[in-house]
């Protein structure tokens, strides 16, 4: 992890200050739901990891793209190309095969892993709806410059 942190540090450009965003009402409106989704998803993930092997949790989380397509079709009314739907078939089939052959299956562990995947997908869909400019420092926002 130290290696990863060092790599991250080196890969970053170190030009200027890290500008901190003040917590206004509009920032909170977009950040708080994202934070809640993240906490809930992480709790589910921890519960799942406590009950079933890590590899199995991540196998179940691999269906996230399926949920993403499903939920954004249902919630946002998005349309995807036929190729996208076709590519989901082997994904779902593979995960089902991996689940049925899983030896260390435990019901609530599986449910928690699935719930974690779902919550993170909902968070991603929600975050796409958030007006991103509110998370930028006032001087960095698009539009006319503040004096």
């Amino acid at each position, binding site marked *: 992890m130290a290696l990863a942190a060092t790599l991250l540090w080196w890969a970053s*450009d170190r030009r200027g200050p*890290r500008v901190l965003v003040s917590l206004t009402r509009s920032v909170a409106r977009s950040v708080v739901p994202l934070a809640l989704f993240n906490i809930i998803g992480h709790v589910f993930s921890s519960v799942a990891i406590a009950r079933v092997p890590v590899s199995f949790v991540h196998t179940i989380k691999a269906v996230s793209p399926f949920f993403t397509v499903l939920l954004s079709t249902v919630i946002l009314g998005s349309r995807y190309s036929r190729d996208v739907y076709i590519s989901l078939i082997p994904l779902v089939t593979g995960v089902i095969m991996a689940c049925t052959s899983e030896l260390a299956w435990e019901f609530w562990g599986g449910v928690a892993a699935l719930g974690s995947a779902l919550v993170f997908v909902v968070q991603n869909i929600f975050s796409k709806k958030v007006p991103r400019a509110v998370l930028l420092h006032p001087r960095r926002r698009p539009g006319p410059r503040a004096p």
Partner: protein
Amino acid sequence: MAPVMHNGLLDAGRLAPSAAAAAPSSSSSSSSSSSANGQPPSGGGLYPGRGGTPLVHVPSPTANYMVAVDAMRGAAPAGATTARSDTEGAPSWAKSHTLRFLVLVACWYACSSLTNNIGKEILQAFTFPVTLTVAQFGFIGVFTYIYGTHARGPRRTGAGAARPTAHARAPLALP
């Protein structure tokens, strides 16, 4: 610690449209075709190697992502005052957007794998997943706060020289 990076990456990727839209460029360029629509020609700024590419046009998902990272960090809108390279100050191997992106992805996977396996080890001895989550988010908050307040770059010039007015980034450490 990995989840925060995971979501940070995903969230940051969506900053791009606004960040790119905020990027009028005044640097000189080999091409003048982009000035037809009233936009000044660009070429320095965010994509140093791409002379004449209008900055409002984001050429690839990778560049898209790096624009988002720059915007998230509070980098000056490209070319607004000066035509600095956005990789100025970074090591030579990190000048490529694609390489930086791949390094970030590799770091993300490394941290994710480590966090999950260490979490499993802990949970086998200490069977309170919610408590573990709270502790993890506590660490994330502390480290993000330290990073946000202390990890400053060396240059403070131009429009970006104003000091940050508040340090309420801590809530952002949660997601």
